[in-house]
């Protein structure tokens, strides 16, 4: 990949547990633990894993809705990479012009007392962009772009008057109204009806390529990630275990966790029998985890090496296929 738009380096988030009033916390949940990846301009990266694996926390750190404990978030700015993990208030405003978020729940992510116009125009108002007339033109254009036509009939309605799918379109319009270069989408279609999902996904795909937006697409659904994303990163207990091009990952998964996840996805064809899933379900919490591989406890293939060595680093096995496993030989991919 040439110059990335976003480069995440050893990003971590620790949450203290059992914190007493006057005591220093001693135990930490390692929600995100040394995660590194890159996203190119216009690229969409899927972040996939079970609930509690740290994928939403990663997304929240990238949008700066949550402070990172350590690590760097580098965002391309006029040809150079600038660390945005520790910027001040003023820097934050410029940052928000570049990075936006689409949330999971279209019922909770909008102020019920504000009209659709207010909601979509909010980023412009905050950023003090354009005159009132210009804002109205821009909002109308965006509503049209997301398929809420004619825009005049939607602008002055309230969220409760819209369906879930329409609200998610509003959320997309709100995220894109200030022309961001990077959007974090956290399960944007999981609350929607099946028949609506594809049109929302198509909308995001089309707008992404039209406007040159990069996505971090967070989902638990591998089939959705395949449809939406150029590359997929698989997360388990705060660690990325595998990253590869979507088709490569599905056709040739290397990490035992990825293999298990893939074999657990139901197939919409009654004639196909899936391979049995080899690992136990139910993800734990990484509270002060040992230094060995995070997947060790659930891994069906673990050997002595895995018990002795530290968590394996994410290594390139060729073709941009990265995997973090002691048991995958170089060249075996």
């Amino acid at each position, binding site marked *: 990949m040439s110059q990335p738009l976003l480069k995440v380096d050893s990003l971590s988030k620790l949450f203290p547990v059992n914190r007493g009033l006057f005591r220093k916390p001693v135990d930490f949940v390692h929600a995100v633990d040394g995660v590194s990846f890159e996203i190119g301009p216009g690229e969409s990266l899927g972040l996939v894993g*079970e609930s509690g694996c740290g994928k939403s926390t990663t997304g929240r750190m990238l949008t700066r809705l949550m402070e990172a404990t350590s690590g760097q978030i580098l965002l391309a700015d006029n040809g150079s990479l600038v660390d945005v993990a520790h910027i001040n208030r003023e820097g934050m405003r410029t940052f928000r012009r570049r990075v936006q978020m689409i949330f999971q729940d279209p019922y909770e992510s909008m102020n019920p007392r504000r009209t659709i116009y207010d909601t979509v125009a909010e980023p412009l108002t905050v950023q003090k962009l354009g005159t009132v007339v210009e804002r109205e033109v821009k909002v109308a254009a965006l509503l049209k772009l997301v398929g809420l036509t004619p825009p005049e009939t939607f602008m002055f309605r309230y969220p409760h008057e819209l369906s879930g799918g329409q609200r998610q379109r509003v959320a997309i319009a709100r995220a894109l109204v200030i022309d961001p270069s990077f959007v974090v989408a956290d399960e944007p279609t999981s609350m929607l009806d*099946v028949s609506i999902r594809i049109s929302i996904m198509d909308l995001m795909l089309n707008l992404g390529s039209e406007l040159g937006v990069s996505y971090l697409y967070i989902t*638990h659904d591998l*089939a959705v990630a395949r449809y939406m994303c150029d590359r997929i990163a698989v997360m388990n207990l705060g660690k990325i275990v595998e990253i590869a091009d979507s088709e490569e990952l*599905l056709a040739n998964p290397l990490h035992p966790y990825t293999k298990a*996840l893939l074999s657990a996805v139901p197939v919409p064809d*009654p*004639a196909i029998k899936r391979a049995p899933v080899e690992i136990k*379900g139910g993800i734990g919490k990484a509270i002060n985890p040992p230094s060995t591989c995070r997947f060790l406890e659930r891994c069906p293939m673990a050997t002595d090496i895995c018990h002795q060595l530290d968590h394996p680093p994410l290594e390139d096995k060729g073709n941009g296929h990265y995997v973090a496993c002691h048991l995958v030989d170089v060249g075996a991919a």
Partner: protein
Amino acid sequence: MTQNGRPLLEVDGLVMRYQTKKGEVSAIENVSFTLHQGESLGLVGESGCGKTSIAMSLMGLAAENARYHAGEIRLDGENLLALDENAMRKRRWKSISMVFQGAMNSWNPVYRVGDQIREAIDLHFNPRLSEAASKDRMVRLFEMVGLNPSMLSRYPHEFSGGMRQRAVIAMALSCDPKLIIADEPTTALDVIVQDQILKELKKIQDQLGMSLIYISHDIAVIAEVTDTIGVMYAGKLVEYGTTLEVFHRPRHPYSYLLLSSTPSITGPRRKLAPLEGEPPNLLDPPTGCRFHPRCPFATEQCVVQEPPLEDLGGGHKVACWNWEKVPVTIGASA
């Protein structure tokens, strides 16, 4: 699946509407299907299509404002809709039981899980089981759903999501029902846990020879657990047939589009065909065929005349005037 003899369950011309301030919501509109002993039926459709209303009607748990305008629900020949609450309570859990969506809300947080299951057993066994017999029964149930029997003396919050759902299944099995209704039992769960629960459910169903109605919006899950499938749209059953037949040769445009708009991790990566528009408002459902405003094959006739559920042969039924226009291969036209 073809079987002889009287079916276990017959839903016959059921019409149910909710009375609301804004008017009548037509939730179930002339729905009929049958279910034999040991058969598993999948009901698939979007939220608001009436699948949960059907489940609640079968359980006799429909909301206060539900009114039955026509039809019968016969279990072993007995019309459940004619029963009073007392008689229905005796059949609930014993004859028909249900695994609800959202396992957390199915449990009372302040009682031990074992005590809650024992309550169901105590209520429904006549003569009542002895302490030891019901304990023994619960241990077997927990083993059957893959839980450690020591968990019986734990409280719901000590269970993980998947364990809670397993316990709900144990509860549903506690009184040897003939029919289990599972309403989106795995929707809130991760895929790996979902896979285990589905396997468990299938295995138990085979072992005990129960009938199963599996309700989901996820057609991939339906494909894996059911023999027969009913596709619902806006309160109507629009297609019905063996799962294999409906998945491989969907004849209703809605089923076809639903299948072509489902992303999969297998097969070639293809452009999916989106379903345009949104589900209708059932306070004022569309005239004629309820799917016509979103249907790419709709004609004049669809707007004015309601298509009947017709048998195309082999028990594959479809309610569409233009089923012949629906492409035979999924994704071909996409």
